């Protein structure tokens, strides 16, 4: 019942719930970024950590979700509460459309395809000036409308909104991973040919994992758009995809909790290092190399080793 893991998670949850009451708005802001990243890394983990194919375009789906949701509310006056599910589902479908041909490829070929797809989305966001306002950025996005008498114009209510959907994302990933479909995903990661030989339609389940991962990233994007209310294409460029990949690696791909912890640790580390902007990424890179040298399964792997789980 009270295993160390559960206690740690309960403590983390209580801290997350109390943060807006106790911490400065700066901390609240950083925690929101960390939570959005946690949603992205958890969804990324579902694809690359559990199912296997290395994807380099999580930020593209994040961006598509953000812009779809923002443009729906801005151009059609649609409520956030409608635009939010519509954008998530659209990005899910978009993931399926991209995954359908791309996942006929395996290994490096698929990875390179996602890399270029990610860059393609960035270029489209940057150059479709009439639609996205290009490099000038998209302004004037409204916070979610009041719901059940809660006004989401303030930071606190928006914080809880992100926390709620963050928890929902993690719970959803946990549900998938522990289902029969999750077993299919893992079998594809472990040995695709064998999975196929025992009767699993590996291509279909890879497309499914990719689409779910995309849809969840799109959901995070929509929340991002209506929390920060300003979108710029560079937020969804290669750098962000790289960040998501690194956070997942540092935390430990193929474990659910690892990438979430990774998202938190990396976000806070980079914030703490703001006093030395030139050194920030140098120190960070060295730390990354060290973590991966010591334990390829990242922080989750180190933790399991300490607890003697392996």
């Amino acid at each position: 019942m009270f295993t160390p893991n559960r206690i740690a998670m309960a403590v983390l949850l209580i801290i997350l719930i109390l943060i807006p009451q106790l911490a400065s708005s700066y901390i609240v802001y950083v925690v929101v970024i960390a939570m959005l990243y946690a949603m992205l890394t958890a969804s990324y983990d579902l694809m690359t950590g559990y199912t296997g194919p290395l994807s380099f375009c999580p930020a593209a789906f994040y961006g598509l979700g953000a812009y779809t949701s923002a443009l729906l509310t801005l151009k059609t006056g649609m409520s956030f509460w409608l635009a939010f599910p519509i954008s998530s589902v659209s990005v899910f479908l978009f993931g399926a459309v991209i995954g359908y041909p791309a996942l006929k490829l395996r290994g490096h070929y698929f990875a390179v395809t996602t890399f270029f797809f990610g860059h393609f989305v960035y270029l489209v966001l940057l150059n479709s000036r009439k639609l996205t306002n290009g490099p000038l950025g998209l302004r004037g996005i409204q916070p979610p409308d009041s719901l059940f008498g809660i006004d989401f114009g303030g930071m606190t209510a928006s914080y809880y909104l992100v926390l709620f959907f963050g928890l929902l994302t993690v719970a959803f990933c946990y549900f998938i991973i522990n289902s029969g479909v999750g077993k299919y995903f893992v079998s594809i990661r472990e040995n695709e040919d064998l999975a196929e030989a025992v009767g699993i339609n590996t291509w279909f389940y890879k497309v499914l994992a990719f689409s779910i991962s995309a849809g969840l990233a799109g959901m995070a994007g929509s929340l991002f758009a209506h929390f920060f209310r300003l979108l710029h294409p560079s937020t969804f460029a290669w750098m962000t995809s790289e960040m998501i990949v690194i956070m997942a690696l540092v935390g430990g791909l193929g474990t659910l909790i690892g990438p979430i912890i990774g998202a938190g640790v990396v976000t806070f580390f980079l914030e703490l290092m703001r006093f030395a902007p030139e050194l920030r990424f140098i120190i960070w890179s060295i730390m990354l190399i060290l973590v991966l040298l010591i334990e390829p399964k990242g922080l989750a792997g180190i933790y399991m080793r300490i607890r003697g789980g392996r």
Partner: protein
Amino acid sequence: MGDILEIKGLTKRFGGLTAVKEVEFCVTEGTRLGIIGPNGAGKTTLFNMVTGEFKPTLGSIRFDGHPIQGLKPHRISRRGIGRTFQLVRVFDELPVYDNVLTGVLAQRLHFSPTREQQDKVERVLELTHLQGQRDSLAKNLTVAAKKRVGLATALATEPKLLLLDELMAGLTFVEIDETLALLRTVNTEMGITLIVVEHVMKAVMELCEKVMVISSGEKIAEGTPQEIANNQRVIDVYLGEETT
């Protein structure tokens, strides 16, 4: 009993190389067929066409009366053809239990395994003598045990026909005898038709009712183990022709 597998004019070309050329044979349900031949004869290519890894260039494969050539491997698996791989394949980072469970779940997806599915895993583990290693990660096992896990995973899919690609290679004599006993049980008690590709002659001769010989992609002989052992063409292929 009828023929469970009927193969006609089966040919596979890789560019200019013909790996399998117009091979024809039938397998009667419930029997044990051995396929032998020198290295590079096309035995594995033949297997890969039956299981759907490769599309045949020409020819037809009928399983249970239905054509299956060109279907994807997972479809063929679901129709009831199981296989093991020449280079042993297991789900490395999963415990033995989950390896077998994946085989069971692959045939019928449930949110979590049903009671029957769990029982099925237990029965297969017992049959393949893997209960003792159920919690070990597959990657930590010996080659012999990994091969048993591969066989167990294939059995878990409840095949009607099982294709075993060099299951005996690299095993000790004792392990070969154990595996032979296991395969006999699989054949007689579970009613699974067996096709084995094997270099270990002792195994082929003891296990199989019928043996087919392939050389350079062509079928050169078929008969009982005794007939094959005395067939001059087979001896020539294996030992080289006598110069007179």
